[in-house]
């Protein structure tokens, strides 16, 4: 998995590329925490390049959501592929996260 991070203080963006499973979820978590530590107003997680995610990746995003809420930052997820959206639906976390289709929508959300 590759991680592309844009730590803009107003609108930070994290774009993982590749499958997010237990093998890489720690790297994903580290990147999310480091970005949230910069206290951006909004953090967009662009999952358009993630074809698969297991519960370790979902847990990482739940952790990030909680950290973001603590500092008053908004976390938005965009670009979910069907398999990834499926795991959010199974765990009913699709109602917990703010999920939009495109990066543009996420920026405006």
């Amino acid at each position, binding site marked *: 998995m590759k991680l592309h991070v844009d730590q803009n203080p107003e609108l930070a963006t994290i774009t993982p590329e590749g*499958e997010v*499973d*237990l*093998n890489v979820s720690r790297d994903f978590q580290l990147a999310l925490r480091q970005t949230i530590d910069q206290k951006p107003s909004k953090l967009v997680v662009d999952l358009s390049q993630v074809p*698969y995610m*297991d*519960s*370790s990746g*979902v*847990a*990482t995003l*739940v*952790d990030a959501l*909680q950290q973001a809420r603590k500092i008053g930052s908004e976390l938005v997820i965009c670009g979910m592929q069907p*398999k990834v959206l*499926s*795991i959010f639906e*199974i*765990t*009913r*976390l699709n109602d*917990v996260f703010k999920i939009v289709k495109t990066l543009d929508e996420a920026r405006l959300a």
Partner: protein
Amino acid sequence: MEEQAKKPVVQLVLPAEPPHIRVEMFSQPRYLSGARDLVSAVARRFGFDEGACGQIALAVDEALCNIIRHGYDRRADGKIWIMVWPIQDSSAGAGCCGDCCSSAADPLFPGDAAASRSDEPGLAECEPTGILIAIEDEAKQVDPSLIKSRDLEDIRPGGLGVFIIQSVMDAVAYQHRDTGGMRLLMAKRTDPEAARKERLEHPDLELSEPSSGSSSSEPSSGPDGSPGHTSGAHPTQERP
């Protein structure tokens, strides 16, 4: 919890027949991707549509993650075995011919699989009606009754694996292995209508084929050769 409530209470037992596939891997997360790809490809051949293949691969992934994280505490040298059997629907007319494969009797529709087998070996084609997967380890044993999915209302990281497995598979059972470690048995039936619809919508996708495999009728010796795997009569641990 609605999906789980619909699922029948069934007994899952380790089949006496040898698995069609047996893979041994170390408890290292870097092998998760390969395990997912293997199981997904096999499920495809058993007649599952793409969505179901993804669900089965996800269940295997979650099971392996639980073993790596909680069973072996992230030790990298623990052994894990993945075993796969096609399920033959003993309640349907097209049962296993008895010679072409060594499929597991349908655990979701318990019955005498032999009764549905053809008297003319080799004439019937063994189209699987489901998949049975066993995942075994030598990690610490836990009381199967304590393995439960957590309340989803409690929004927190972690603990979702068991819920996901129970959600996407039709039947799940955790057992102690006689020789130490744990066994997870999980089964899922194919949805022929979904597969047919998918083939019509995506004719370029590869069609599933009937399974073939060993004709041996000898009982499995298990991944470690332990006699405990030969009985096929392990007690069932029902899951909520």
